[in-house]
């Protein structure tokens, strides 16, 4: 959308490069829900979308259909904001309210005071 270059690091080769991938012409909306942004919506309505993403990304790709060729499995990444990460992983939130308050590590609210910086605790929570 912004047409501004984005800094990327290739996970396989660690190659750093600046590319223009912010073009809106490379995006396509697949689901539009006229609804409030809540966890149940992600669990029930958008589940189909993520299951499809998993199917085309893991083993199957897209099978041949209607004269179109079969496509290789895709490299699928999920680019969500923090709220969506919380909803989708069922983890994350207030560290005194949510049992798993971090989407990246196994810290739990019951052991909150046990974890110290650099001690079995991720750098993001």
């Amino acid at each position: 959308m912004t047409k501004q270059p984005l800094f990327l690091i290739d996970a396989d080769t660690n190659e750093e490069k600046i590319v223009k991938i912010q073009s809106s012409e490379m995006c396509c909306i697949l689901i539009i829900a006229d609804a409030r942004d809540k966890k149940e919506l992600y669990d029930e309505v958008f589940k189909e979308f993520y299951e499809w993403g998993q199917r085309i990304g893991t083993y199957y790709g897209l099978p041949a259909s209607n004269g179109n060729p079969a496509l290789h499995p895709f490299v699928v990444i999920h680019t969500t904001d923090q709220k969506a990460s919380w909803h989708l992983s069922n983890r994350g939130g207030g560290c005194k309210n949510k049992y798993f308050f971090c989407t990246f590590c196994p810290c739990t609210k019951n052991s909150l005071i046990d974890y110290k910086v650099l001690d079995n605790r991720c750098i993001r929570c």
Partner: protein
Amino acid sequence: MNATTSLETSLSGCFPNKHASTKAKVLMDEITSGRLFNGEALNLTKIFAQSYVRDLFKPWRMLKAGDVSSVGAFKTSAIKALREVIDHEGIGLFPSASSVDRARAKLDKYAFQLIGYKRRKTIYGEVYFLNFEKALRYLLKACHLDHLATTEKVKISLSIDGADLFKDRTHVSAGIKITDT
């Protein structure tokens, strides 16, 4: 002798040893002065210029400008401003907002035929599902990755986000993006 040769010969006679650009400028000066053929040459030039601008600002181009610009950058008010401010004499250089709307309706209809969608009523509200597979195939084609995808893994990303539509009304959209470079 055709018209081009006649004009060039006659201008070369009037301005011997001058560059072609100089002679062309003299000719254009004469046309735009309105003296040539009782102003008919100038009238025709204006018609050509208007036709060029109209062709440049076709409704579908305005629609595309709105669709690919960032949110709020190019909207109906911009189309209205072009007509009311730039084309204040009402020559009809720019398309009307309604003609752009008609182009949008045509595009929507074509996209629905091409990709298809289904509407589902849920307890959370109305949800529109595009045909995932068709949309992805067309997106790959648009990015010239359709052939590559038959032999190699192409990178895509799935994303989801919610935003306000207007006061007290939100929507959530999910989509794909080609991130393969």
